[in-house]
């Protein structure tokens, strides 16, 4: 996994609440058996006027000029600013894969759906939950070329004018993300404890281990 430490990036606003994973990456793209290549289909139904299909070449498709990510001033944006309950709906990890593949590294919102929030950390994507009025403030401040610096180690967002906003992140997740660590390897360091647990559990619930 790609580590995340410090990033100064262009901010793109997506002024909608309850953006669900079906909107982030429509289900027809879930038929892929790969992890990469979902970026061109991110927000497919909003970004394009025609219907997207897997493996389609997106360079010739009908672009929805009104959709925010299609506006030239947000090209190359790495930080997505959005509204409450972002990532609700299905558990598909294709949602963070698509966001990451598109180029986003940070998502700022008042709240996130739990599974999506979790999935982000496993893919080098940092979701930051800020108070709703604080997110409102960022939306109001946003102008062309607006960038933010995100410092994960210091747990701070720094605006171009020097204003700083602190954010919360779970210690463990922060450590893994800062170091780009593989969760499985870390958990397997506890293999003996897992085995010991199984022995104990088998005494109480033998039917689980037949």
């Amino acid at each position, binding site marked *: 996994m790609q580590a995340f430490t410090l990033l100064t990036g262009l901010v793109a606003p997506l002024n909608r609440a309850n953006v*669900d994973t079906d909107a982030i990456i429509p289900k027809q793209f879930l*038929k892929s058996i790969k992890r990469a290549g979902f970026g061109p289909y991110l927000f497919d139904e909003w970004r394009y006027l025609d219907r997207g299909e897997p493996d389609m070449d997106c360079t010739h498709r009908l672009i929805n000029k009104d959709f925010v990510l299609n506006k030239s001033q947000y090209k190359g944006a790495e930080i997505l600013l959005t509204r409450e309950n972002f990532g609700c709906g299905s558990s*598909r990890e294709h949602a963070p894969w698509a966001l990451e593949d598109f180029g986003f590294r940070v998502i700022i919102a008042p709240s996130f759906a739990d599974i999506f929030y979790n999935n982000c950390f496993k893919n080098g994507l940092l979701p930051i939950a800020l108070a709703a009025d604080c997110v409102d403030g960022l939306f109001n401040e946003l102008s062309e070329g607006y960038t933010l610096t995100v410092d994960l180690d210091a747990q701070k967002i720094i605006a171009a004018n020097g204003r700083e906003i602190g954010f919360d992140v779970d210690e463990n997740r922060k450590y893994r993300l800062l170091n780009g660590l593989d969760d*499985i390897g*870390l958990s*397997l360091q506890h293999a003996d404890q897992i085995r010991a647990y*199984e022995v104990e559990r088998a005494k109480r619930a033998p039917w689980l281990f037949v």
Partner: protein
Amino acid sequence: MSGKTLYDKLWEDHVVYTEDDGSSLIYIDRHLVHEVTSPQAFEGLRLAGRQPWRASRNLAVADHNVPTTGRDKGITDPVARLQVDTLDKNCTEFGITEFTMTDARQGIVHVIGPEQGATLPGMTVVCGDSHTSTHGASGALAFGIGTSEVEHVLATQCLVQKKAKNLLIHLNGQTRAGITAKDIVLAIIGKIGTAGGNGYTIEFAGVAIRALSMEGRMTVCNMAIEAGARAGLIAVDDITIDYYRNRPYSPKDSDWFMAERLWQRLHSDEDAVFDKVIEIDATTIKPQVTWGTSPELVVAVDDVVPDPTAEYDAVKRQSMLRALEYMGLKAGQAITDIAVDKVFIGSCTNSRIEDLRAAAQVAKGRKIANNIKLALVVPGSGLVKKQAESEGLDQIFIDAGFEWREPGCSMCLAMNADRLEEGERCASTSNRNFEGRQGYGGRTHLVSPAMAAAAAIAGHFVDVQQLS
């Protein structure tokens, strides 16, 4: 010291190890696998040279992509076929039991788990699918995970988790006659919103919940995720225990008696303290119909489409306006005036035998309306289908003009050929009414099986009790 909630008990039973920061490695008793969220996880295992920690704790089935007709001809869509074939290959390679597409036990992963006794009270159950919350109906801690976590469970039989908070949703009083589990859960979501359960595990309680069958309880827990919670729970009682007697994977003989004793304690203690309690009056719940593109946008069938201008929260007002536009509806329109084009009875929310019986009771001796282009009944599993056929339900549906299909997710998410065309309106027993969920530009109204059948007969929404 105060008592423990059911969630506290389930959590404590499964902690292998706790880090200083409170995140824990918890043991997973049952891992369900399907074709959409697993290929990348198996690929990860292979690349890292890892083997499943305990292959026997996994059970796989293809459900999302499978066709519901002409199964003997295989899958014609090459992309879907590749995904299903990949699952078959992965399961063979890693020694995981799979109910393949032609197995009589094949079906929607959340239907076959309880049906087989593969998901049991007191277990931790995970699957790369958000509606894993369904299995909480049996007093199991069950939640959906992402693909990285699927790989993690395969490799370690564990997951790194932080404990959620405890939310009790207590229903006061008994529901009126004819009110189903689906109406109850939609009414709850209408009240607390789709983010209402974020960060919590919800326990559903009260006499109205106790009165539900296991099937009904599964419907309620299925949609806990639509209320923002990863897991929903219902305490174990005699209904639970009776349900699991003699299921293929249920404990046998002396193990059964041991299990029964162990399961008896799976309820919240009298003096347990919840982080939050929400009381809901069950006596006033009416049949529910969603009108928007989020399950929280729901009203009673005798109500009208709400007026966004009456909503003072600007963000909410905006999403209501967008929903109205997408759904092609007007504020103030009576729900019963909304005509439907297609009807879908199925999905892990409502495709169990009881659901089919409820819908068949409405369809019996009637015919679907002329404006209905397609009315589909898709049983949740091969065994549900067989049971329904032995009761003659298939014939009732067919006589009324419904199509009777092979089991799978089908039009719940339209990954196979069953879908809505642009602008088509559907009365659906599934759980999500998001934009495009049932097909590009399709419009979904979530209802109970009886209400879906009633809409098929009337050609528009109607209170099933008033169907002439």
